[in-house]
Every structure is written in C-alpha cells, then in structure tokens.
C-alpha cells in the first residue's frame, strides 16, 4: 500500500538507469511486509515518508531538511550528522533522520558476510537506506533516531569490529584506490598506507582538534582514480624515479596490430590502425620518446611519468622499479576562496613500513596548521595566506624548482633581516653624514 502519492517521483522509475525511487519503494514494501517479523526500532514507514518529503521538494523546489543538530556517540566529535525534517507532522517517519558514517575498508572490497551483517543492523535500527558510498568514501547509513546511535555504534564495534568514520573539523575518513590488489600501475601499496595512517590517527579522526576538515587520499599512480590531487588536503600519488621497463617485442606486437591499444578502451569506434607515432610519441608531454627502426627509445631522465604511453601499451611498458610517492598539499573544492589542486610538496618519498618519515612530515604540517590556521580555513587556504615557502620551512624541505610551475612574476620578496648584510638597524645620522637633507 502506497502511503503518499508521488506522481513526480514516479516519473523517475522509467528509463534504463537504476531508479533510486524504485529502490526506495522496494524497501518500503519490504518493511510493510516485514517478513522477519522484526520489531523495527525506528518507524517502519520511514522509506515511505522519505519519498513523501522528497516529492514535496519536487513540488516546492526547495529542501525540507533542517539545519544540522548536534548528535553523536559518547566521546566522538564526528561520524554522525544530525538531520531533522522541517515537516515532521506530515512525515513523522523521518522527523529524526540522522546519518551515520561507517569507515570503509581500503579499496572498498567486501565479503557478503560483512555486508549482510551491516544490513541486519541497519534493518532493525535504521531506515534500511544507505549510500554505497558517500563522497569521501564512507559507507553512509541514512536515517536513524538519536536513541539508536549508541546501539548501532555498540553493535558495529562489538559485533563487526568496525568503527565510524569522520565528520566535522577533524581528519576525514581516508580513502584510496584499489592499488596493488588488482592494478599493475600501483606504485606503492595505497591500501596499506591508507589503513596504517587511518589507524595511527584515530584520535584526530574522532575528536575534532583541527581548524577545519582535513582529507587524506591515496592514489597508486598519477592517473588519480580517487581524485586525490583535486579532493584531498594531503594527497599521496604513486610514482617511480628510475626507468619505464620496455618489452620491445610486445611494442612491435602493438605496432603490428596484434594487440589492441589502450587495453581495448577505445574498441567501440573504428579509430583506424594503431599509429605509435601519432598516438604515443607525439602525445608525450615531455617529448622524451622516439620510435625508429622498430625500436622504442625513452629518454627516462626527461620523462614526467604521465602514464600515457603505459596506458596505451600496458603489456609492453611497465612502471619503474624504484617506486614511492609524491605528496601534494592543499586541494579543495571552491568554498570559499576558489578551487585548489594539491601543490607538489615532496616530489618523491619511499613508502615503506613503518612509514616514519611520512608520519613525521604529516605531524609537522599539522602542528603548523593547528597553530596558524583560522577557524574553518582549509590548509590550502592557509598556504595561500602565508605562502608556500612557509610550508617548506616548517616541514624542513629544501626549495626546489619542482615546487613551482614557474618562478614568481613580481620582485616583492619578503626578505628577512638575517638575509641582508649588516641587518636592518641603521642610524639616520650615519646616512645624513653622506647625504644632505
């Protein structure tokens, strides 16, 4: 039985792409039928009421969710986002409808046993609706009441050995690509580094002590599948510093048309015969390759490791053996001072347990930001305000042309007194002894 008429949302049930409306309806029906005879701990009809309030927004062109609300579990300052409906009389099932963020495993691999256990908790104690996954990477459980928060947390930690994720001005749940578990491009174990740093910084993740949010993301190579360079305050991007490994016979097989270029990614259109000159050599951003006499030559010293040639011929070209990662700082979306990409701070660092060098760097950067950052200022904005050179100074990194796109356009250098012979303290009488007024 349909609780609310939803003529607008119903129009989103047709068309090929999976319909979230159909899915919510399916959950509503499941809860009405209640095949397991559960004593639902939040209103059984909350999916119906969610559709109802969403339909109202489709009519009104405005949201019907109230601003936040401080709710959480004891001792944590994040992981739960309070949410209340502004039409609670019409939609009592979603009057209190808080979000819980659950820490996801590195690379978002699951066993069905894990997911079924989570579904069981969320069926009894929540709305039965989720996001797989939220923008930062957490499993997001949408919709429960305040009294259920501690119960869910207790079951998650005691029965599933799993924690909540982050929210607010703290370390947000770190995220990584699938890395070495199924990718030949992975230049370091992004999943393991993500896991180890998540464990190391649990306190920073659960108890807000930062000026604003802080995100770690870990990409195994410069293709950046988890968008670390655009979306994380500290971005770890895999790279190498030796040579691309070349198998000339296999290069010849690509040239001869025996193997589809670009791992078959362009197979839906006839782009003509593979042309290594046009498709690889000419597109190399540093022009460090040539193909002559049936032999591919790479001037590795000039290579900027963009991955294009490797992507086009993945069976012939392989990432180097001396691997590690680059660390970039300060990426964020436009709020407030405009969008920022991460700025290259450590061009190359080895990624090896116990990761002491990386942790030391992180902690130096945090100490500085916690001291200097203003309320609700992302570290990228602190960098813009105080200068990139300041970051290098606090992190003890020697400035290097790799830190800039190009040198500065103005000569307004903030010299320090120590830089100048004789310092800055001068006597006007001494000056006047040489110059009349």
């Amino acid at each position, binding site marked *: 039985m349909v609780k609310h008429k939803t003529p607008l949302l119903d129009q989103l049930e047709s068309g*090929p792409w999976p319909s979230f409306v159909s*899915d919510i309806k399916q*959950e509503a029906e499941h809860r009405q039928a209640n095949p397991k005879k559960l004593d639902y701990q939040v209103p059984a009809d909350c999916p119906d009421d969610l559709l109802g309030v969403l339909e109202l927004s489709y009519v009104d062109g405005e949201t*019907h969710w109230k601003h936040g609300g401080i709710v959480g579990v004891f*001792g944590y300052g994040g992981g739960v986002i309070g949410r209340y409906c502004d039409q609670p009389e019409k939609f009592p099932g979603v009057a209190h409808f808080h979000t819980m963020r659950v820490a996801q495993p590195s690379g978002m691999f699951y066993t069905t046993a894990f997911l079924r256990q989570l579904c069981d908790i969320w069926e009894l104690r929540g709305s039965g609706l989720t996001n797989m996954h939220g923008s930062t990477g957490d499993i997001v459980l949408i919709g429960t009441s305040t009294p259920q928060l501690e119960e869910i947390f207790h079951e998650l930690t005691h029965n599933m050995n799993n924690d909540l994720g982050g929210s607010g001005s703290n370390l947000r749940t770190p995220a990584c690509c699938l890395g070495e578990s199924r990718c030949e491009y992975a230049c370091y174990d992004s999943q393991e580094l993500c896991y180890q740093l998540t464990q190391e910084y649990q306190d920073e993740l659960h108890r807000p002590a930062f000026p604003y949010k802080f995100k770690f993301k870990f990409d195994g190579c410069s293709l950046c599948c988890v968008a670390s360079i655009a979306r994380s305050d500290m971005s770890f991007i895999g790279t190498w510093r030796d040579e691309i490994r070349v198998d000339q016979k296999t290069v010849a097989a690509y040239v001869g048309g025996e193997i589809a270029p670009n791992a078959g990614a362009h197979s839906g259109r006839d782009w003509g015969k593979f042309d290594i000159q046009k498709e690889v050599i000419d597109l190399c951003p540093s022009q460090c390759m040539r193909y002559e006499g049936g032999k591919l030559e790479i001037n590795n010293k000039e290579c900027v490791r963009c991955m294009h040639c490797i992507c086009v011929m993945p069976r012939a070209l392989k990432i180097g053996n001396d691997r590690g990662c680059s660390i970039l700082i300060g990426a964020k979306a436009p709020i407030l001072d405009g969008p920022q990409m991460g700025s290259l701070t450590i061009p190359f660092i080895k990624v090896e347990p116990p990761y002491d060098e990386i942790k030391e760097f992180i902690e130096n950067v945090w100490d500085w930001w916690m001291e200097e950052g203003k309320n609700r200022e992302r570290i990228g904005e602190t960098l813009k305000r105080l200068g990139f050179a300041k970051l290098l100074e606090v992190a003890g990194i020697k400035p290097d042309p790799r830190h800039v796109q190009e040198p500065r356009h103005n000569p307004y250098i903030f010299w320090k007194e120590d830089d100048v012979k004789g310092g800055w303290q001068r006597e006007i009488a001494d000056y006047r002894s040489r110059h009349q007024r």
Partner: protein
Amino acid sequence: MAFISSGYNPEKPMEGRITDIGPRHFTEFLPPVLAKNKGAWDYHEILEPGVLLHVALSGDKVYTVRCGGARLMSITHIREICDIADKYCGGHLRFTTRNNIEFMVGSLDEAKALKADLNGRKFSGGSHKFPVGGTGAGVTNIVHTQGWVHCHTPATDASGTVKATMDVVFEEFQNMRLPAPVRISMACCLNMCGAVHASDIAILGIHRKPPIIDHENLDNVCEVPLAVAACPTGAIRPTKIEYQGKQVNTVAVKQERCMFCGNCYTMCPAMPLSDKDGDGIAIMVGGKISNRITKPSFSKVVVPFIPNEPPRWPSMTKVIKQILDAYSADAHKYERLGDWANRIGWERFFEKCGLEFTAHLIDDFRDPAYYTWRQTTQFKF
C-alpha cells in the same frame, strides 16, 4: 515498539566500550586470487564494455564485471548484490569510487553468464538494477551528493538530476566509442561535498537569491560574529533592529555583494537561501584529475543557470547531451573534453556546442580571475 538493547548500558557508557578501532583490514575482504597476486599484476584488458581481464605475473587471471548503481541504495538491493556475489564470486565484491559495483570471477564464460544475469535484472518500474558498463572511453557512473533527499543546503536534487542525466547518456555508459573517458559529477550546492571542480562535465546546484534573515530567531540560534565571519565578500555586518516592538541583535546583508555561496547559512540557520525560482543548475566542463598527457585542470562554467525542472530536468539534460555530442564528433582520440576545448579554442567550443556566451561566464572573483582573461591577440573569428 519495544526498545531492543544492543548490550550498551547508558548508565555506564564506558563499560566495555570499544573505540578507535578504524575500519577492518582490507586483506580480510580480498578475493583469494587477488590476495595471492597482490602487487604482482602484469597487465589488464577491457574485453568488452563492463568486462575487464587482469592477468597476474603468475599467469592467474581474474575477470571483473562492472555495473552501475544508484549510490542511494536500499539494504534489499545490497542483499541482492550479496546473493549475486555468493552465486558467482565466492562471496566477494567491491565498489568503485564512482559508485559502480564490481564482481570478480575466474573465467570468461562465468563473466559472460554473470553479465547476462546482471543486465536481465530490472526494478518493478522497468529500470535496470545492474546495468553492465562504465569502462574505457565512455561515460561512467556519476558521483554525486545528497540533494533534497537528505541535505539542508541544496539548490537542487542530486539523485533526480543524476537519474535523468544517466538515462539520456545511457548508451555511452554501455559503449566505449568516445574519444576519451568522460567523467560527469554532480554537487547540489557550492559546498561541493562531492567535489565537482575537476570533472569533464559538472552539474552544480546554485542559489541566486541572498539569504532571508529570520530576525526574530537569529540571535537565539546563531553566533552573530560567526555569521559575519562566514561571508567571503564581507557582505554581512552585525546590527540591532526593532522587531515587533523589541530591540533584537541580528545581521544586515549587503545584497549586491552576495555571491550566493551559502556559507552564512552553514554557520547560521536563521539565514536560509533556498528558493524555487532562485535556485537551479550551472553546468561546468573541461576539468580532469588525471595527469595523463596534460595536467589536472579545473572545470569551467559554460552555462550559468538552468532552472530546476523536476522530475527530469529536460533543459539540463539537453545541454549535457549537446556538449557530449559535439565533443564526441570533433575531439581527437585520447583527448579529454577540456583538452579538446583548449585546442579548438573556447570561442569554437561555444559555437560547436550551440551555447550562448554571457557576461556571467567571465570570472570576476579575486586574483585568479585575471588569469582567465585573454592576454594575447591569438583568437579565432
């Protein structure tokens, strides 16, 4: 409803409390063939749209079938995903960063059977449950935010705009015939909790009316200095006014300075922005996150405003299709949408996409604006 205790004792919250344990270690969840060959993969191949082969140095092979999904997902749906993974994949699966689901099997025959099974499953309303695709030079799933489903600041809905868009570009999800991958992203306000500022095509909810000030309640629910400090353009100042015969502390907004970011509302619930006529969508294009060939780049605003037209946002999907079709017809192989626009020039981009250029599209926000103006005599007629 009778309260069912988990075992938690509210009288003694610290008793037996487990905290700070983080997520489970990922190796608990890896399919055996992945665990065995971790860090020792040789190469991969996309055999057909949505089907990947990864070959390990050991010679082991794993076939992955990728399918799309709405990121807003019920537990009934997740249980069906589990049933599929139990039937075909020994109880293992993964999700991608773009809300796709990946099932891994040991042979091409199993992959083909799985693909057929997935493509055959439909919701009662007729849409696919698990459409296979989202690989290679095509459109993959859209990453997005909560929208009207569960957020207090949106200027549009997220799930609805995504469903409407994916229905229109669905063929490109199931094919690999574009010049390069096209990543579409959606954020329902300028906060961009699903950062869309580096996407080939970005759908962005925007407000266009300054906040309404709830003078009666503002001083009770907001810290005035925080509301003032929240404004990036300094448009908000503290003030006292007479309200219904009483002196109240409140704020005043210099409306012509408002850039409609909503940061004040984030800090102060007595300053709502949302409005049926004011709110809608901006379209941005040409961003990317990969370092391949060209550097990562930001998305650029190419359509300043499209009204909200629920439930299917036809004007918005028409614009997206126009851009995608123009790109598909004109770009070189491997050329991302932004690289194509840079090569042909933005004057050509607007011409080829049939879009109008207006003053709204010329940046006037702080220093970076200057670097987007054209300081050369190189242009096209």
